């Protein structure tokens, strides 16, 4: 109990560190991200030229490249990289419900029984 004074001093020192610092992304970072996005667009078009060689993998490859582009936009342009954890969770929730929507749509299509009209 005699150590109360030292404790409160320590607390004050901890509380002085600010939690609302302004994050300014350098211009070069934005330019590099945009450069990567252009390069990936070129890659998408290039992959399209070889779509016959890729066969059924052509579409997943195209969407994989798109996902990398999406990650770049989300992390740097939308500042998710330097954002609070809570905002990332909120963002993730959106994708969770999108995945849920896709999952149920896919289930519907996969479990359909082919029926021919009698009319």
């Amino acid at each position, binding site marked *: 109990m005699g150590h109360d004074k030292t404790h409160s001093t320590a607390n004050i020192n901890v509380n002085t560190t600010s939690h609302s610092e*302004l994050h*300014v*992304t350098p*211009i070069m970072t*934005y*330019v590099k*991200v*945009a450069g990567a*996005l*252009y390069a990936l*667009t070129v890659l*998408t*078009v290039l992959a*399209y*030229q070889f*779509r016959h060689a890729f066969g059924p993998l*052509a*579409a997943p490859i*195209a*969407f994989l*490249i*798109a996902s990398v*582009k*999406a990650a770049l*936009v*989300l992390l*740097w*342009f*939308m*500042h998710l990289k330097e954002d609070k954890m809570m905002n990332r969770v909120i963002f993730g929730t959106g994708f969770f419900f999108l995945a849920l929507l896709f999952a149920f749509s896919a289930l519907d299509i996969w479990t359909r029984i082919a029926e021919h009209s009698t009319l």
Partner: protein
Amino acid sequence: MIVPKRAYGVVLVTSSLTMALGIHFLQVRKKNQAILSLALTVVLGLVFMVVKYFEYSHKFHLGFLPGKFLDPSHVQAVHQNLGLYFGFYFCMTGLHGIHVLLGMGLIIWVAIRAAKGHFGPEFYTPVEGVGIFWHIVDLIWIFLFPLLYLVG
């Protein structure tokens, strides 16, 4: 080569860059550069919509319309389901286009407020919010491009 001509989505990528730069310039108190970046973003959005207009006109001209409106005389026997594809095509690109127009309006709004000196390093939340909206519109196009123009 028809694909590179269709890859005009790079216009939106560039507009995302100028949008991000607009916020950067507000953070470092460079008001004029910020307004210029935001104006450039609106111009690039407009370029995207003009290309969209020519693309739609071309499709209308060929009779490539959704569902029962599809002109069968332009379609070979293997493509009889093209009406379904164009239903998706016009709904998805149309809804995206409406969001581009909305975004352009919002950017004009924050640009005017920036010109009035409402924003600086201490407060730029509306610009950040509009920026996030603009980036998500760009993000949707990143997926619509392979979906409708390459895979579809």
